[in-house]
Structure formats: structure tokens, C-alpha cells
């Protein structure tokens, strides 16, 4: 069974289509890059998978079932927003996750908290944006989920932190689990990708293995996408 399957998935906002007939399959044990420009529909797709948006038509199945309690128990999701109650401290956030997710590893979370030099007792409202992002990443990666959905985990951080974040992701995801990682910073991430899903103006423009793309096109994924947009630009002229 596929980990995720999208069937003719459409999403409109006030009649404006954001996702157009998306058909997609994601297997277990893969690291998949969901690539595309800002506004291409990456976050919309991710939010539908996480039950935060209701599709206009079509459906998404997670291990054969519609998003619900069961899918939420196996998906660990990192949104772009700060989704923690700002009155909480990291310590309280850790016990919150421990209370609700049976796959949450408190020890790992506390170890990562120390690694990241975060204060267990500092209020989240008093933290910088970078600190909050780190805290959320550690919470999400402290779960032994079957699918990690990471929405722009590298946005807005400096290159040194990017490496640290990628390391954290690689060293903490469970064997056999998949990672769906959305980004527009392709070059930073492409070396860890198994597969590439490229979404453009709400449509799946490409779904291929990363190596296949490199061998066929004889260039990096990043270069391929730059070329793709250049071609499109000249097409329009």
C-alpha cells in the first residue's frame, strides 16, 4: 500500500484553483522533495494531507484512509508557522507532545533541546523566530512517525543552521519512514533526496527519482529547475 496517494485532488479558493487534478503516490522509506516556487501549491497540498484544508474534489489517502485520527498518529508535521501556545515553555511543549503522541520520545527531545542550547524554561513568546523554528523541529523529529512532513524547514535560516537542520532531520528519522520536505531552496537539499516532486501552478509538473533526473538531464536538480523556468519565461515572450 502506498503511504500517500492523491487521486484527482483539486482545491479552489473562491473559485480560484490552487491545486489542479493532482495525482500522486508516495512510498515508504523515501526522502521526497516537494519543489516549486512560492505560491505553486506546495503548502496547500501539505495542508490537505494534514487535514487542515478540505479538498474541493478528489481525495488524499494516507495508508489507504482519509486524513483523520489514525493518519495524524503517524504523520509528524512541521508547518511554517509557530503553532505552539506562546505562553508555554519548551519543557511544557515537550510534555504536551508526550501527552498526545504515543510515538514521542521525550529523552530524544530533551537531548536535542540541550544540543540546540534552548532554555527549557524560557517562554516561547520570549524566543526569537530562529529559536522557535528549532524548537518545533526538535519536537517534530522526536516522534517516531511513519511520515514526516516538513514545510520549508530551511526558510529564513542562515547556511550554517541549514546544515544543522538537515543533520537533525537525517539523524532522527526512523528507519523505513518517509520524509516529504517542501522547499524552494533546492540546491541546499537535493543531495539527500530520493525522489523529486515538482509542482508548478497547482499541477504536478514532474515526479521522478532524483538520480534519474540527474542522469537523464546531466545536470543538478537545481539547474534543471532554473532552466525550466527560463524556458517558460521565454515561452511567454
Amino acid at each position, binding site marked *: 500500500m502506498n503511504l500517500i496517494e492523491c487521486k484527482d485532488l483539486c482545491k479552489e479558493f473562491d473559485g480560484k484553483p490552487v491545486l489542479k487534478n493532482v495525482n500522486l503516490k508516495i512510498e515508504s*522509506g*523515501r526522502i521526497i522533495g516537494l519543489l516549486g516556487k512560492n505560491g505553486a501549491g506546495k503548502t496547500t497540498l501539505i495542508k490537505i494531507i494534514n487535514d487542515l484544508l478540505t479538498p474541493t474534489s478528489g481525495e488524499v489517502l494516507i495508508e489507504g484512509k482519509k486524513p483523520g485520527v489514525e493518519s495524524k498518529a503517524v504523520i509528524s508535521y512541521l508547518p511554517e508557522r509557530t503553532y505552539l501556545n506562546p505562553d508555554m515553555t519548551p519543557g511544557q511543549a515537550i510534555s504536551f507532545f508526550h501527552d498526545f503522541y504515543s510515538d514521542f520520545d521525550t529523552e530524544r527531545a530533551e537531548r536535542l533541546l540541550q544540543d540546540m542550547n534552548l532554555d527549557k524554561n524560557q517562554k516561547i513568546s520570549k524566543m526569537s523566530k530562529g529559536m522557535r523554528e528549532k524548537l518545533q523541529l526538535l519536537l517534530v523529529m522526536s516522534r517516531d512517525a511513519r511520515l514526516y512532513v516538513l514545510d520549508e524547514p530551511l526558510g529564513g535560516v542562515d547556511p550554517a543552521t541549514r546544515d544543522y537542520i538537515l543533520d537533525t532531520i*537525517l539523524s532522527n528519522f526512523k*528507519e523505513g519512514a518517509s520524509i516529504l520536505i517542501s522547499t524552494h531552496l533546492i540546491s541546499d537539499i*537535493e*543531495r539527500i533526496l530520493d525522489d523529486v516532486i515538482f509542482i508548478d501552478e497547482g499541477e504536478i509538473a514532474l515526479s521522478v527519482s532524483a538520480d534519474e533526473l*540527474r542522469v537523464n538531464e546531466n545536470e543538478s536538480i537545481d539547474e534543471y529547475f532554473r532552466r525550466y523556468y527560463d524556458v517558460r519565461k521565454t515561452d511567454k515572450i
Partner: protein
Amino acid sequence: MNFVFDNDRPIYIQLVEQLEKYIVSGKIGVGERLPSVRELALLTKVNPNTMQKALMELETEKLIYTERTNGKFVTTDQTLIQRHKEKFAEEKTEKYLKDMAELGFGRKEASAYIMNVEGEENEPD
């Protein structure tokens, strides 16, 4: 050990090349036990799947072998290692000759350049 990758070629092929190099140069010793796939992936900062693929490739080349339950080991077959080493040397030489040919030097001239290089002979590191 330091691993650097270009994004325009499959990462696993580059991994194979670099691991081969470490084996033939003796940086990973003959018969040495390799860390687990996951540990190696972390060390090289690549996806575990990619590392797995690279190791499978090395296994088909017989440079490493799997001992049930104990993990993966570098081959103890010295002649095989030597053969790979020579293959590398040939490739490097070919590349040098090709580059020189592009500059308009013949094979003889190119090798003369090598003979004329000044300085002490470097100890291989």
C-alpha cells in the same frame, strides 16, 4: 574522511568513487569492519537509501562483503584492491593525457612534463 558531492551527478555514484578511493588508498583498511549504513549515512551526511545503494554497488564490485549478522567488511583480497588501484591510476593518467592533448601536447611531450616536475618525491599520504 571528508565527502564532497556535486549535485549534477547521482550522489551514490560519487559515494562509490570516494569510498573506493578510501579503500584502495588504505584509509579504510583491508578487512576492516564498516559502520552501519545509518552511521555511514550520518557521517557522510547523505540519505541512508543513497548509502545503501552505494554499498550495494561496492558489494557487486566485491570490494566489500557482508558477513551475516556481523555487518559489512572491506575485502581481504589484496589483488582485487590492487586492481582497483591500477584502474584509478589508469583513469587519472588518461585524464591527464586528454587534458594535455587539448592543449596540443602529444603523449611523449606530456610524459616529459611529468618527468621534469621539480621537487622531492611526495610520500603518499
